[in-house]
């Protein structure tokens, strides 16, 4: 065999091995993406969560893995990013082009810069207003405690304003279109940024405005939100576990994700079980145990078993490095984006 042919065979072999490895990874990766079949399948006795053959083609969760395999694992090391103090207006176009081409770092940077400018704008407008109102208020009737609280509040506002003023130069000249959060959050999330996914899935369409002029974002959300959510869970993201649990339970304030998932008590139970495994405090454990018991009462026994099994598997597989819930109560993933 001449060297030229040998090299070709070698190259072919590498391609085949890579393809086989990718296929295997995709197959294995597909297994735990969704806790259980939807309630319609709850009567099945198959508890093999890893393969869930009873999963219906129409179940939203079944769409997960094919989408997940794509952009979320294509993080690439492109050219160096602009310096951190570069104004958004100057770097937006370049970062956007790179993000659209699949540069994960550029996409995350753009998401954070836009988020930081939105936060800066919000603080400068609303905290300035709050401070001026407080300063104009008549304080003659306040007692010592009330005055001390007022001083502390003013101090906090002052700190926030100082930080916002320091950042304001980075946001000068940014157009309203450049301050729209939804498209940049989606791109960063697609390229593997879990925090961007948390924000996009929770309130990304409304946090930065723009939906009135871009109702097509709803279609994007419908097509992407669940796959992004499942991918984030596979990366050990407790924030998304909470979001999915609330969505499947159709809890109040569960937002647009609840419209994508629809209600599914079996899946809500499975995610609740997963949360219980990450409970940090005895109080949290007690709370989740009570909720689990309540939820289990309304489910067939095999659905409970399936949910328990899936949660155990998911916990071991995805949360080994992050075994305890680390999302503060009431955490808003779209707040303080890009804060130092």
């Amino acid at each position, binding site marked *: 065999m001449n060297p030229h042919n040998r090299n070709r065979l070698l190259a072919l072999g590498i391609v085949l091995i890579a393809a086989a490895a990718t296929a295997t990874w995709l197959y294995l990766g597909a297994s735990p993406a969704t806790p259980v079949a939807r309630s319609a399948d709850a009567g099945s006795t198959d508890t093999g969560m890893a393969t869930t053959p009873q999963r219906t083609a129409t179940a939203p969760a079944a769409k997960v893995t094919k989408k997940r395999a794509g952009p979320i694992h294509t993080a690439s090391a492109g050219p160096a990013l602009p310096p951190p103090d570069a104004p958004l207006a100057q770097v937006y176009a370049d970062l956007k082009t790179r993000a659209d081409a699949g540069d994960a770092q550029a996409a995350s940077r753009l998401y954070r810069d836009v988020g930081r400018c939105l936060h800066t704008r919000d603080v400068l407008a609303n905290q300035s207003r709050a401070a001026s109102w407080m300063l104009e208020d008549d304080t003659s009737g306040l007692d010592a405690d009330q005055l001390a609280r007022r001083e502390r509040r003013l101090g906090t506002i002052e700190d926030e304003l100082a930080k916002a003023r320091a950042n304001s130069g980075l946001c000068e000249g940014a157009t309203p279109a450049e301050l729209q959060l939804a498209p940049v959050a989606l791109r960063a999330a697609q390229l593997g940024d879990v925090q961007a996914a948390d924000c996009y899935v929770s309130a990304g369409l409304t946090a930065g405005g723009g939906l*009135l002029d871009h109702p097509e974002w709803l279609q994007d959300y419908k097509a992407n939100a669940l796959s992004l959510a499942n991918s984030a869970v596979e990366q050990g993201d407790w924030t998304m576990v909470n979001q999915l649990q609330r969505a499947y339970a159709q809890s109040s304030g569960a937002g647009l994700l609840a419209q994508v998932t629809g209600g599914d008590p079996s899946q809500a139970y499975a995610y609740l079980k997963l949360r219980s495994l990450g409970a940090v405090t005895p109080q949290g454990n007690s709370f989740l145990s*009570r909720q689990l018991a*309540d939820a289990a009462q309304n489910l067939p026994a095999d659905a409970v078993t399936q949910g328990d099994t899936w949660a155990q598997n998911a916990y071991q597989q995805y949360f080994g490095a992050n075994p305890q819930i680390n999302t503060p109560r009431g955490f808003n993933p779209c707040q303080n984006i890009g804060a130092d």
Partner: protein
Amino acid sequence: MSESNSQGKRGPIMLALMTAIAIAIAAWNLRGKSTADPHAADIGGAGAIPAEVASRTATQHAEFARKASAIARWLSQESLPPPRTPLSAMHDQLKRRADAGDADAATRLFHEVHRCIALRRTRDLLAQVLAVGSDHPDDEAIGVIGPAQAVQFKQVGAMKAYIANNDALCEGATDAQLSGLTPLLLQAAQRGDLAALDCYVATDFDAMAGVLDHPEWIEQYRAEVPGLVESALQRGDWAIVELLEQAYSGKFDTSARGQVFGTDAAMAYGLLRLEQLGASGDFADRLAPRVAAVAKTLSTARLAAAQAWASDYYSRYFHSVFDEGEVNGANLCQINDD
């Protein structure tokens, strides 16, 4: 003449009568059209209350719809189902009548569906609150832990009472009957239901259940809200004044209403000034520096126009006191359907 023949002839007569009355009401209502919002264009030019608001006679539309609906019902002798009829037993009838333009049926349907959605949410919330107090299974125990939990105790009691009061009314209501609250909300708002109107304007897009499958609701919101807001202003609705001020001042610039109206300091000032005119006592005193702070940002001409607008609207439409606790945007959709 047989009774059936008599009824057969009565239909066209009633239709003709209804049409004549409707035309008369419309003509009467259109008399005052030119009085609507004469100063709107003075405040901030193109950025003030949108031009379409000034041209719409939203109050008259609502009033016309109400009268026409009442006449239609009177002629048809079809009364609404009695109070405390379960939703499942009257949903289809109310829906059919609402779709045919019956304002009372529309607003009744909205409130009944809203009641049953609120019931589901209350059950969900109660379960969570009780789970939090799992170490104290009886809610009285929650009440004695401390001052904060004492409030919790009251909420538990109120939630249980709400569930007890409304459970039977929602028995058998299906998911399908409880979906599509947003169109019902709009329909009731268009028919003159002020509580529904405030809730619709205050609603954000991600709180519209079903919007992912109905992106047209976004455009509908843009098209309908200015006219609804104007009609509410002309009915002296303080809640809408506050919602509009939040939008124009930029406080809620990314909210649905904030995107519709944009920010405009002159309009924000005009609305704050309107609130100041309606407030009394300490609250009026506390509003004064806020009004003054916004005034400083305006040119003399824009300030004068905004003041004139506020005075004009206050004298023409607002006959009640603006109470500080009256308007809370977060609670606007918690309509009391006990």
